[in-house]
């Protein structure tokens, strides 16, 4: 196992021994994860490795079966999505979690509307356009229902929504999967921008090029367990090995020890 360089920012989020069972299935077992301010942590792993489950635990959608979560050194319980949002953990889900019957502005401001007793539609529309323009989004109209948008456009709306509350940590579950070339670049730019602003970013992706481009640390999950932490400089072979489980033999352990010494 390689050890990544020690991050410098404040420790924002720290998970110890997180497990999550769905009936007989252990989706997550003894997961450990640290996220510092100003750091991009990439979560990689095969399908079914537990990445999305972990994100949902952090977003307050699922409650862990056991384990501790601490936020800025204080133990917290993320009992609901509202609790996670309140702490400053914003999430872009893979299954997008947008309301198709509402328009773009309503979706971006869902649950956070300005002026609850007399909605300020103009201010919300302006802010929505500002956020979307920051993402170089190509949204035809913010007053059309989400149902009329393409997958990529919906993704952009979901990302714009996560930025609305000025969160401390942003989690992106497969943010670039549905995006075109330009939008992918914009999302990666955005990830770097929010990191430079001192936010912690957790990004899930199957695209190794994207991961290497922005990640400071790469955390590999396999079958619901931690399977190594890598730097972006790690070779593709090492990463793929950790993801697929081919590292679980004497040769790969030797290789990783050599790599560790080389750092």
């Amino acid at each position, binding site marked *: 196992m390689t050890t990544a360089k020690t991050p410098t920012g404040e420790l924002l989020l720290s998970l110890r021994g997180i497990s999550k069972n769905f009936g007989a299935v252990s989706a997550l077992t003894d997961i450990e994860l640290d996220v510092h301010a100003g750091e991009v942590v990439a979560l990689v792993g095969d399908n079914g490795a537990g990445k999305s489950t972990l994100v949902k635990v952090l*977003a307050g959608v699922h409650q862990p079966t056991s384990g501790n979560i601490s936020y800025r050194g204080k133990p917290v319980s993320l009992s609901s999505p509202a609790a996670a949002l309140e702490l400053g953990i914003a999430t872009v889900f893979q299954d997008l*979690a947008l*309301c198709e*019957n509402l328009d773009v502005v309503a979706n971006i401001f*869902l649950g956070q509307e300005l002026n609850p007793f007399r909605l300020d539609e*103009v201010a919300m529309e302006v802010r929505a356009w500002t956020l979307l323009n920051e993402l170089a989004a190509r*949204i035809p109209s*913010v007053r059309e*229902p989400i*149902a009329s948008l393409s997958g990529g456009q919906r993704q952009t709306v979901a990302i714009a929504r996560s930025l609305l509350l000025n969160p401390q940590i942003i989690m992106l579950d497969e943010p670039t999967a549905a995006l075109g070339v330009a939008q992918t670049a914009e999302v990666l730019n955005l990830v770097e921008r929010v990191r430079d602003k001192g936010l912690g970013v957790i990004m899930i992706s199957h695209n190794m090029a994207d991961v290497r481009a922005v990640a400071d640390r790469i955390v590999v999950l396999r079958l619901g367990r931690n399977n190594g932490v890598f730097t972006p400089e790690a070779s593709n072979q090492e990463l793929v090995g950790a993801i697929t489980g081919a590292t679980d033999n004497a040769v790969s352990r030797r290789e990783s020890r050599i790599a560790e010494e080389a750092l």
Partner: protein
Amino acid sequence: MSEPKKPTLDRADARVTHASGIGGTISAFIDQVKSGDLGALPVIVGLVIIWTVFTILNPIFLSPNNLVNMLFDCSTTGVIALGIVCVLMLGEIDLSVGSMSGVGSTIIGVLWVNAGVPLPLAILAAIIAGAIIGSIYATLRNRLGMPSFVSTLSGLLALLGLQLYLLGATGSINLPYSSNMVNFGQLLIMPAVVSYALCLLPGLVMLVVGLQTNAKRRAANLSAGSSTGLAIKAALTTIGLVGVIFYLNLGRGVPWMFALFVALVLIMNYAFTRTQWGRSMKAVGGNAEAARRAGINVRGIYVSAFVLCSSFAALGGVMSSARLASASQQAGTGDVNLNAIAAAVIGGTSLFGGRGTAFSALLGIIVIQSIANGLTLLNLSSSLRYMITGGVLAIAVIVDSLARQSRVSHGRA
């Protein structure tokens, strides 16, 4: 144009056509209807057909006094339908509103007439009873996952039992005829001056709010509608309303009870469209999980909807006791339940959740009451009336389903 203007914030995308001028507005409307976003169109078409047929069969139907009578009848079930809109918005249903209204009217009879409790307290008690029943439904749904279809179906029977128990052996309590309460339900009519003054308000509000919004949008570098179009819309609304009021004033005039109903519709319309609560209602009805992940208190929204629905049902029952001058075993039974639900659906609130307006209760109940009233004028038996009302509800649901399919295929869900 001499110099090209910088496009406003929301008009930068060249792929989107934007309606301009009156022709553009009309063609945009046609596109919208074709894609299944029907709005109030089916109900208005239906209303024109129904009124034409009944007027041909019996000219008395369209006489001012018959219409005034109809407005009295609309108000009670209309208030109940307004509550139904709340639960339908979430994709839920309340099948017990008829029984709840029966309990509401019984509480008036028992507390006010029999026990001598002051009327305002008795009305309050009825509404609180509704709120309690609604919160029970919401709790069953939130904590036990009981579908509202089942919980309210059992509620229908249980509340009917409660109504019979409260009424006791007599089975009927008469409200004093000379009381203000009964006057309100049967006689009280707005002075003509007041009705004209009130009917100028909607156009005026439309104009002022519209101009304010336009100014604000321009200031924020967003596109804004034309002031002329706004003025035309406001003028047409005012002219239409003045025409209706004038016609009604040829007869007895506008009932205060109907004014109360319209006021409630307007309040709910504001709540649905301009508040965070209304936005959350639509979100939960559209995609409850997405709403939860956005941090909305989904359980709270369910509680608010069921409590409002049952409270409106109880209030409707109170109004019907005034209308009928009695609280009896028959109150809230028969077709009250179906009429209230049918009104909401016919008016354009979707059974599938996430879509609906407060005005659908108003428009829908006018359709339902027109059918009931017209068939009564034709001296048709209630057996036939039930069949026809059932048929109309079926048609409304079919239109709703077809429109929904069309919306999905046109990407407007």
